């Protein structure tokens, strides 16, 4: 038997959590180095997975499957394809950075590290599992560490934010659970055995009505996670009140569970409903793009601004997904990675000045360019990536999304393109107010520029931002087969024909 790399990716973080908790209480200085080292092992594994993943192959790779519940149809079933691969890599990549960004946490830092590791394990589990019951388990259980991360180490209004986050998402999960149970009962009726297996579910024939209800049940859970307008109201509070590490993981990876769920479940399992509701979902996404950007413009709080920008950016991802074209879907999945990197970087940057000045109000800053030139440079580069400047990663994703959606929803795509302009407005205006001019406030005049640790955080993430902007091929070629498979499945199950298919791969699938 081969080395169970996927299991290792799920359980190594859990083991790391146990190791960190077991560190002697008298040696608090050990916590961060040990946690960082452990997170690098997981990152190494994830890197190995990306390299070893066969680009161009169809279906799931590295599949592991064992029955864990006898006759109840719940399997421990893991597998990775182009859709989940980079989500796993992104999770493993952001964790070491979040750990390094938590050095200023002195209060119960062991527990914070353990929570981060548990969160990582559960997130990787969500992306890798091919069993719906197990998916729900991971999906729901990661709320607990996230809840503690916000509630224990967050800002002033952390309790309210943590509870809001938990209840909002748990509300969505309730529908998801009901949907999964209903689906499993349908599968039982048709296949003759109890199953929660995702691959079995693909064979279940669902009536149009059932598809609509299930699309709704799964969709609400995922729409809250994304968050899609109008389910976004939990997000600004949670992101703003969470500690830096929490915000990075929350914005970087947690939100992607929603978009990932749309691709993995809503498109594949309920194709008829997906095709018919695509216009509606795309419209909601575009409302989110414009609304999120517009609200971000007027935020006086830098972290809140970045939080609202997520609403806008995730709107692009959802628009790309529901365009149901090769470019749109591919761009959507790529943009999930890109947003994880750029928004993750923005939250890390905001965290760095917050550590120095203990304020997030834009009005409290000004002229930082003169005092912290390196910091300003990194911030500007990340802002450009977030806006979608060519040569940086955001451009590739947004371009593909707009290209892919224009052929299906021309008006929506045009409106969405204005979102890019608005992004330039809120980010550059924020840059102007924070960094340009003279540092006329006394507190701002003696700020230390970024140190070695902070450079260590920013360099890898910036390098990836540039790399993916210049040479996205390694990522795209791994995503392509999975995307084509989704579209092929939709075309087989419905009379929908997607414009702009990549013919050579589609041929191979047939």
């Amino acid at each position: 038997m081969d080395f169970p790399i996927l299991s290792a990716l799920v359980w190594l973080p859990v083991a790391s959590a146990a190791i960190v908790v077991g560190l002697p209480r008298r040696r608090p200085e050990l916590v961060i180095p040990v946690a960082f080292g452990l997170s690098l092992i997981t990152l190494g594994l994830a890197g190995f997975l990306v390299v070893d993943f066969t680009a161009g192959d169809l279906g799931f790779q590295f599949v592991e499957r064992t029955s864990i519940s006898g006759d109840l149809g719940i399997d421990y079933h893991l597998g990775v394809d182009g859709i989940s691969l980079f989500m796993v890599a992104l999770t493993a990549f952001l964790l070491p950075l979040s750990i390094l960004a938590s050095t200023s946490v002195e209060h119960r830092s062991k527990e914070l590290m353990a929570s981060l590791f548990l969160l990582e394990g559960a997130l990787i589990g969500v992306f890798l599992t091919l069993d719906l019951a197990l998916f729900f388990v991971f999906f729901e259980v990661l709320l607990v560490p996230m809840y503690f991360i916000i509630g224990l180490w967050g800002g002033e209004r952390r309790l309210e934010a943590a509870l809001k986050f938990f209840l909002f998402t748990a509300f969505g999960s309730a529908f998801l659970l009901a949907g999964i149970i209903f689906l499993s009962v349908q599968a039982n009726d048709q296949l003759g055995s109890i199953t929660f297996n995702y691959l079995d579910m693909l064979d279940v024939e669902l009536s149009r009505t059932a598809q609509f209800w299930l699309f709704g049940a799964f969709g609400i859970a995922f729409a809250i996670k994304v968050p899609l307008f109008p389910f976004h109201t939990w997000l600004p509070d949670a992101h703003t009140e969470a500690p830096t590490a929490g915000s990075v993981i929350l914005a970087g990876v947690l939100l992607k569970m929603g978009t990932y769920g749309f691709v993995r479940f809503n498109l594949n399992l309920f194709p008829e409903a997906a095709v018919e509701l695509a216009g509606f979902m795309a419209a909601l996404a575009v409302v989110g793009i414009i609304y999120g950007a517009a609200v971000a413009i007027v935020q006086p709080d830098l972290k809140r601004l970045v939080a609202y920008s997520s609403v806008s950016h995730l709107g692009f991802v959802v628009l790309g997904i529901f365009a149901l074209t090769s470019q749109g879907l591919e761009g959507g999945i790529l943009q999930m990675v890109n947003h994880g990197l750029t928004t993750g970087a923005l939250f890390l940057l905001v965290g760095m000045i917050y550590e120095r000045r203990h304020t997030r109000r834009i009005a409290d800053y000004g002229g930082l360019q003169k005092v912290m030139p390196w910091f300003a440079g990194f911030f500007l580069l990340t802002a450009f990536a977030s806006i979608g400047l060519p040569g940086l990663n955001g451009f590739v994703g947004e371009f593909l999304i707009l290209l892919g959606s224009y052929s299906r929803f021309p008006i929506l795509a045009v409106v969405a393109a204005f979102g890019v302009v608005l992004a330039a407005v809120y980010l550059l205006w924020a840059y102007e107010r924070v960094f340009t001019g003279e540092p006329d406030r006394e507190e701002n005049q003696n700020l230390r520029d970024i140190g070695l640790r902070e450079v260590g955080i920013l360099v890898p993430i910036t390098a990836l931002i540039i790399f993916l902007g210049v040479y996205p091929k390694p990522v795209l070629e791994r995503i392509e087969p999975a995307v084509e498979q989704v579209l092929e499945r939709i075309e087989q199950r419905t009379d929908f024909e997607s414009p702009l298919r990549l013919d050579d791969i589609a041929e191979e699938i047939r």
Partner: protein
Amino acid sequence: MTDISYLAIGPVIALTVGVLAILLIAVSFKTDERVLGWIAAASLLAAFVLGVLQWVEASDNPTTRFNGMVALDPFAAFGAVALAVVGVVALLVAWPLAVAQGKRIAEFLALILLALAGLILMAASAHFIMLFLSLEVASISLYVLAGFSRQDADGNEAALKYFLLGSFASAVFLYGVALSYAATGTLSITGTAEFLESNVLLESGALMAGIGLLIVGLAFKVSAAPFHMWAPDVYQGAASGISGFMTAGAKIAGFAALARIAVTSFNPYIDDWAPAVAVLAALSIVVGTLLALAQSDIKRMLAYSSIAHAGFILTGLVAGIDGVPFIWFYSVTYAFQVLGAFAVVSVVGGPAGTRSALSDYAGLAQRAPVLAGSLALLMLSLGGIPLTAGFTGKLFVFREAVDAGYLWLVLVAVIASVAGLFFYLRVIVLMYMHPQAETALEPVAGDSIRIALTFVAVVTLAFGIVPGPLIDVVTSALPL
């Protein structure tokens, strides 16, 4: 009369012998309280072993003994085993309270064992009269336990309330038995099923009324809405050390009895009673959850949550015989959770305490990390978060209910479980994220409570992560 099988009533005999031994030794000798405790533990262990022997004996050859009075089937055996384990945990949790009773400890322990004997017999009754008798044995012991400390006004109020309403429910139950007898001409639980399967009733009114009253009577015992009014006052008024046992024991045995008569006797009429049970389930879930939201006392909160959980367990019953294994799974794992939760309450508020304000829990994580950790785990499990037994139980009963066509009920249930998270999380927030009150005491858990909590935590996690083994057992624990 050759139909005697001592094995069929073995666990009951073991417990009764324990009761007699404790009472006689206590009046005859000046003994250490520990000796009495060990006797109680020994009789529970004997009941456990005899339950396992019953399982071995009955798994191939389920039958009834004592001329159809007592069932010797896997269902009864599992009930005996589960209740014996619950009894051991309850004894550990109640031990500080028992010691505090001074000279009356013998009566206290005897009542616990007697209640358990009644509860075990409830799960094993194959005859309505037997069921009624065991129900009364259990109930009367529990009434007395509720008001065991005579000086405590709250306890007395609880006991009286429990007694009056409980007697009323018993009367309703008995009336149901009478009507069922009038319709079928038999008092045997299996005989009723045989009669109904081979005869068509021209007038089913009396039978329907009988089934309805039987369900109402037992719904009262398991505190399902709208027959739940007594539960909050009683669980709050009783001493914290014993409330957990009252909740856990009554739930397991009450649901066992309800499941047995519903899916055995009245299975041919499942289309008539299942909708009624579904309505009871939905009402319990909604009423329990909504009222729990408003509580500021943790014992009342747990009492209302037990009403909601009664509703979740009833959700499994609408699926008939298919749901029975998961009723077992849910009620047994719930029993341990509620025992553990009340164990923590009895440490924080004192074993004899009857009130326990939620505000006492502010900052508990710093004062007593182990207690806070266990309570947090139990709250997550009661709230139905995955990897805990509370989630697995919910998943299974919901699945059976959807399979039986009760999607609406499951939707009500899942939405209510989210609302429920609000008050379970509030306890966690208080313990971990609030500064502690300055006057707060440092609660110290004794050894017995530590052991009980460890066991409960292990069970909750183990059956949450690997439910397989218990599922395998309960899927064979079916009634005759």
